[in-house]
C-alpha cells in the first residue's frame, strides 16, 4: 500500500453541538445504512461522533457504560491497564498519530453478567473536508456479559478527502460473549487505517462481522485476536470492492490457550480497477487448538486484482489448522444452470453474486440484515 502523507490532513475541526444530531434525523437512511438508529430505539446504548465532536454517548440499560475514552480515563484509574494494552502505540505511524493526536473515541463497558437487551451502536462520521479523525476506542465486556456492538463508520456525501485512524482495544472477559459488527461506508477518496487488538479470556466468545460494500481510496487493517483457554474467535468479512478501491484486509488469531478455536471466513468481490489483498493468519500455540480459514474471491473484471494470503502457523503438534482459498470468476456452468431455469445471463450473474456474499451473520437486527441484503442486491444488480 502507498505511504500515506499524514501531514496532508487537518487536525482542526469545527465544534459540533449535540443539537446538530437532529439534522441527521432528516436523512436517517444514510445512518441506517451503517446500522445506526438515530432515534436510539431498540438500542441498549449509543455513541455518535461527528468529526472530533461527540454528539451522543448514552446508555440505554443499567450495567452498560458509554462515554468517551477521554472521560473514562479521567473517571477510572484502572482503565490505564487497558490503555494501549491490546494495541501498541509503537505499532506503526498510524497508532503513533492516534497516541499523539487523539480525537476522542468511545468507551463501552459492560458490567459483569450484564446481557444487553438490544445492540449497542456507535457511529464515527466524517463531515469535514480533508480532516484527520484519530479515534481511540475501548470495549470491555466483563465476566459473563453479552452484547452485540454495531459500529458504523462513514463520511458524509460531498467529503472528497479525509483520513480515519481508529485504534480499538477490545477485552472479552471470562465467559463473556461479544459480537462486533462493523460496517464501513467511506468514499472513493477516503484513507482508512483501523488498528484493532482483542483479548479473549477463558471461555469467552468474540465474533467480528465486517462489511464494506462501497468504494474507499485506501483501507488497510489487520485485527488481531488473542485467545485464552477454550476461547473462540470468529471473523467474517464481506467485501465488495469497486472503482479504484485499494484494500488490504486480514484477520489474525493467536490460539494461545488450550482448547481455543478460530474461524476466519472472507468473501471478496473485486470489480472495475479495484485491488484487494485478503489475508488471514491462524497461529496455534496451545494444546488441542483448532482453526479454520476460508478465503474466497470472485473476480468481476479483468482489471481488478485479488491476492489471497491464507496463513497457518502451528507451534505445537496438537494444533489442528486448515484453510481453503479460491479465487476465480463466475463459472459459466453456474450461469448456464440458472439460464436453464429461466433467468437471463444478467439475472443469473446477480443470483450467483448474491449467493457468494451470502454469509450468515447471527444476531443482526432485522433492519440491518435487510440493509445489508439491499446493498448486496444493489451491487449484484449493477454488474
Amino acid at each position, binding site marked *: 500500500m502507498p505511504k500515506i502523507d499524514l501531514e496532508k490532513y487537518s487536525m482542526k475541526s469545527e465544534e459540533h453541538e449535540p443539537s446538530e444530531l437532529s439534522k441527521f434525523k432528516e436523512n436517517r437512511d444514510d445512518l441506517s445504512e451503517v446500522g445506526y438508529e438515530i432515534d436510539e430505539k431498540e438500542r441498549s446504548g449509543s455513541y455518535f461522533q461527528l468529526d472530533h465532536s461527540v454528539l451522543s454517548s448514552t446508555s440505554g440499560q443499567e450495567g452498560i457504560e458509554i462515554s468517551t475514552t477521554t472521560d473514562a480515563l479521567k473517571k477510572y484509574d484502572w482503565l490505564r491497564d487497558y490503555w494501549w494494552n491490546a494495541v501498541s502505540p509503537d505499532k506503526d505511524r498510524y497508532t503513533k498519530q492516534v497516541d499523539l493526536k487523539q480525537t476522542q473515541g468511545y468507551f463501552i463497558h459492560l458490567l459483569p453478567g450484564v446481557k444487553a437487551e438490544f445492540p449497542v451502536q456507535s457511529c464515527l462520521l466524517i463531515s469535514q473536508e480533508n480532516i484527520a479523525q484519530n479515534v481511540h476506542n475501548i470495549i470491555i465486556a466483563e465476566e459473563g456479559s453479552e452484547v452485540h456492538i454495531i459500529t458504523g463508520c462513514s463520511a458524509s456525501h460531498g467529503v472528497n478527502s479525509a483520513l480515519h485512524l481508529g485504534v480499538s482495544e477490545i477485552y472479552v472477559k471470562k465467559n463473556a460473549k461479544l459480537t462486533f459488527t462493523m460496517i464501513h461506508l467511506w468514499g472513493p477518496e477516503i484513507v482508512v487505517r483501523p488498528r484493532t487488538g482483542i483479548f479473549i479470556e477463558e471461555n469467552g466468545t468474540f465474533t467480528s462481522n465486517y462489511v464494506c460494500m462501497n468504494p474507499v481510496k485506501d483501507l488497510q487493517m489487520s485485527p488481531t485476536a488473542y485467545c485464552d483457554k477454550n476461547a473462540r474467535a470468529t471473523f467474517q468479512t464481506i467485501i465488495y470492492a469497486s472503482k479504484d478501491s485499494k484494500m488490504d484486509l486480514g484477520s489474525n488469531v493467536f490460539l494461545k490457550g488450550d482448547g481455543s478455536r478460530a474461524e476466519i471466513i472472507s468473501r471478496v468481490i473485486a470489480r472495475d480497477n479495484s485491488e484487494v489483498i485478503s489475508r488471514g493468519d491462524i497461529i496455534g500455540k496451545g494444546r488441542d487448538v483448532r482453526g479454520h480459514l476460508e478465503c*474466497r474471491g470472485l473476480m468481476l473484471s479483468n482489471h481488478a486484482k485479488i491476492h489471497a494470503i491464507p496463513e497457518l502457523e502451528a507451534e505445537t503438534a496438537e494444533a489442528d489448522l486448515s484453510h481453503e482459498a479460491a479465487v476465480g470468476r463466475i463459472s459459466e*456452468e453456474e450461469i448456464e*444452470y440458472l*439460464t436453464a431455469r429461466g433467468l437471463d445471463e444478467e439475472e443469473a450473474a446477480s*443470483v450467483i453474486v448474491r*449467493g457468494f456474499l*451470502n*454469509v450468515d451473520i447471527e444476531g443482526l437486527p432485522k433492519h440491518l440484515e435487510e440493509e445489508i441484503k439491499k446493498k448486496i442486491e444493489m451491487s449484484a444488480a449493477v454488474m
Partner: protein
Amino acid sequence: MLEIRGLTVDVAGRCVLNDVNMIIEEGEAHVLLGPNGSGKTTLLLSILGFPRYKVKEGKIIFKGEDITDLHTSERVKRGIGISFQNPPVIKGVNLGSMVNICMGEKTDEITERTLELAGKMNLSEEFLKRDVNFGFSGGEIKRSEILQLIAQHPDFVMLDEPDSGVDIENMELIGKMIGELLQRDYLPSRRKRMGLIITHLATILDYIHADRAHVMLNGGIVCSGTPEEILSGIKKNGYEGCMRMSRKLGIL
C-alpha cells in the same frame, strides 16, 4: 410438437452432432439410447441452446416456432425444461430459492407451494435450505432436479440419465414422479407434455412406457423404433449391432 431438422452442431470447432432428425409429437415420450460420448447430452443441451453448442446447420422447431437462434432463457420461457445429469453447486443459493426461480418468483423465502412440491419428492424443509447440489447424494441430485422441473411446469421435458446413481428405493419414487411429470397416468390422447429421456438402464422405462426410442452413435441417430424393439435389439447385438446394421443400410 418438437421437430429437429438436419441438426448439425459444433462444440469448440469439432462436429459433435451430425444431421440429427427427430419429431416428438404432443404427449409423446421418447427415449434416447447410445454409448457414452455418442452425443446424447449434446443433443439435449443444443435443444436447450447453451452458447457452447453452435448450430452449423438445421433447425429446431418448437410448437411451430423456429427457436434455433433463441437464448436459453427464452426457450425455457416457451416451455422447455431439463433435468441435468451433473448439475453444478451454487454456493449461497439454496434449493428453495432455485425452486422459486423455476416458478418465476423473486423471493428467497420458502413458500407453502415449494414445501408441498418438495414433500412429493420426499425432500424436507431442511433440505430446501441447503446450497443447491452441495454435498447432495446421487439420488438427492435427481430428486432436486425433478423437483425443479415440476416447479417449472414445462411443456417439453428433457431428462439426462435421471436414473443413474440412484438406489432402488429412490428409483421407485423418481420413476413414479417422472411418470407423473410426463402425464403417463393420463389417457394417451389426453397427454400434452412431451419428453426426451436419456437412459442407460431400462428400469426407468417400467415407469414411463415411452412411445419411441432412438439410438445415437457418433453424433447421429442411427435407428428408431418402439422401445421394446430397440432394447431387445441392443440386448441381442449391442450398440455394435446397431452400428453394423446402420452401415449396411447406408445410414452411417
